[in-house]
């Protein structure tokens, strides 16, 4: 780990000032940043500590849930409104990491999580377009069992590892940010960007822009939601494939659906085709399976991760089944 400066702004304005510059990194929980610092993947000049600046409040009102970016994963997962009104979010959070990491990790940090691609995380590997633009991608012809099949490009196939983001995507979450030049709101689905030919860019955020809040609108659909995660061991492992789904039912019929995929996309993935296919259909296994098959349209797999083409739809079906059985 290289040396760096540490600054502790007292308020948001100070943080916005101090966060300017490419070699500044914001830190809250530290679970990702300290990890990458120790791997020498991140080499910032200074760390800007947002713990005194971000709100950790989680408040519920008629519109929905407003989550301060400083709230920890644990608090969010066990918030009674989250468990009642949008269980997929709680389930997703509790399926991720470990209790210790959930206690440390902030919501803002979780949004900006970086890939677990082992080639990215190993500075001894030269070819990583994310770390060194233009150097190539070691994963494409390497060991890519954990890598993405959706949203990949010739330059990068790294999967986005977050569970929380997948759930928030299925909940139509909105991300609120502040920058020196003002404030804005982004749909979560617009926050993360595809690698394309610039995998070093992962979000729409401008340098020095801080995520301050996440807003999740309340809805019937959010209440009937579920998260299913498939992984190699019973706990403390990243997703091979995961699905966050939410169903709005009218009697036995699906009025609207949200399906978001994890572990298979270079960013959290909205399965729009599958969602459309479910509209107006009965909430049965047959409909679920038909829709799930559509989720892999456009997928490009390697010999190592081709199994995800079979696995991901099954995970979607399992999640839809779980959501459908909730009252």
């Amino acid at each position, binding site marked *: *780990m*290289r*040396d*760096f*400066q*540490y600054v502790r702004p007292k308020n948001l304005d100070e943080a916005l000032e101090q966060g300017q510059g490419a070699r500044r990194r914001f*830190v809250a929980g*530290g*679970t990702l940043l*300290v*990890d990458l*610092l*120790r*791997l020498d993947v991140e080499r910032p000049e200074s*760390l800007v*500590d947002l*713990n005194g600046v971000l709100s950790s409040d989680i408040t519920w009102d008629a519109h929905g849930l407003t989550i301060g970016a400083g709230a920890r994963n*644990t608090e969010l997962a*066990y918030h009674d409104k989250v468990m009642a009104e949008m269980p997929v979010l709680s389930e997703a959070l509790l399926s991720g*990491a*470990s*209790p*210790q*990491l959930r*206690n*440390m990790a902030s919501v803002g940090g979780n949004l900006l999580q970086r890939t677990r691609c082992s080639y990215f995380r190993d500075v001894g590997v030269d070819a990583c377009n994310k770390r060194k633009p233009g150097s190539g991608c070691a994963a494409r012809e390497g060991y890519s069992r954990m890598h993405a099949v959706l949203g990949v490009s010739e330059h990068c196939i790294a999967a986005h590892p977050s569970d929380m983001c997948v759930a928030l995507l299925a909940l139509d979450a909105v991300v609120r940010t502040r920058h020196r030049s003002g404030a804005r709101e982004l749909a979560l689905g617009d926050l993360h960007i595809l690698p394309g030919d610039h995998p070093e860019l992962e979000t729409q955020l401008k340098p020095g822009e801080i995520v301050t809040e996440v807003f999740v609108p309340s809805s019937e659909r959010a209440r009937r939601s579920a998260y299913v995660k498939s992984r190699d061991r*019973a*706990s*403390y492992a990243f997703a091979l494939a995961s699905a966050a789904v939410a169903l709005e039912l009218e009697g036995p019929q699906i009025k609207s659906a949200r399906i978001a995929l994890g572990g298979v996309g270079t960013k959290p993935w909205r399965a729009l085709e599958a969602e459309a296919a479910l509209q107006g259909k009965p909430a049965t296994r047959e409909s679920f399976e038909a829709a799930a098959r559509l989720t892999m349209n456009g997928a490009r797999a390697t010999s190592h991760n081709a199994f995800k083409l079979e696995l991901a739809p099954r995970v979607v079906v399992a999640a839809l089944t779980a959501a459908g059985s909730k009252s």
Partner: protein
Amino acid sequence: MLDAGLDRMGQHFQLLARSAGQPLVLVFARNWGEPSPATLEAIRAELRGLGAALLVLGLHSLFCFRPDDELEEVEPTAVLEAGVGKLFEQYEVDPGALAAGQLTLCVLDATGRLRFRRTADAADGIPEALLRALQIAGKTAISGPADARDWLIKRREVVVLSLLGALALVLADGCKREVPNAPAPTPAPPKAREFPVTLRVNGQQHELMVEPRVSLLDALRERLGLTGSKKGCDHGQCGACTVLVDGRRVNACLTLAIMVGDKPVTTIEGMAEGERLHPLQAAFITEDALQCGYCTPGQIMSAAGLLKENRAHTDDEVREHLSGNICRCGAYANIVRAVQSARAARPT
């Protein structure tokens, strides 16, 4: 020029015979005193740092001590007492001052040459004064890397005399050992940027100067000597470093010391109340929820957090909620049993 008396002394001085060609700390003091376990532990650490054995020469007693052995008391004989008396002379130690509580500490390097000497008042006890003098000796030995390197290069090139021989020379021909002139100080290398940090650990305040990149785990282990929290991966992937910060279980390896602030930190060293073990600790013993013991402090701290959280109750829930603590020895089944048993003993 060793005479038969010195031969006998050599036999008595098993330690010295083994230590021929090795650094030695000579301490002239009234007696050894009775160091507390903590002081004795610290004396051992200083001796290891010097790579030296310890020889305590009292008025009527002689103690040899290598840091990883027990203290060896040598029975005084007439020959020994005479030899020791000579040493008092050569090292300019006044028996009267000694009797009044003065302590003189000399560090001899592997060639038998005197590299450091300090006299101190042992008002608050000989062991404590000995420790303080040792600590200063240790720091002096390393003050300024350029100096130390010069010393070390010279040491390697010097012909080694046996320590017994050196002592024999001192005793037999009475030649004085010179304190060499300290090498001229060279400019210090760039210092790292350190910042003051106060850590509240197990109810005690610790003031430290740390670089921002120092983890809480390394601060505990390397700076505060609290090695109970373990490093299993340094990347938040095993849980061996689990401690409580503000009552919440976290991975100390991913926590920067400079970010802890005044939140209270609890480590495994803070779980027992004096001799009375925490119910988790007692249960781990009874249920044999450990084998090599390396993941154990993290397991216990994680379990303490789990009990406080009060969300995991069934065996399966406990398993899931302790899955952030890897046990390579495979003691999981007993760990679950221990946690459930401890919960029953002290419900939260």
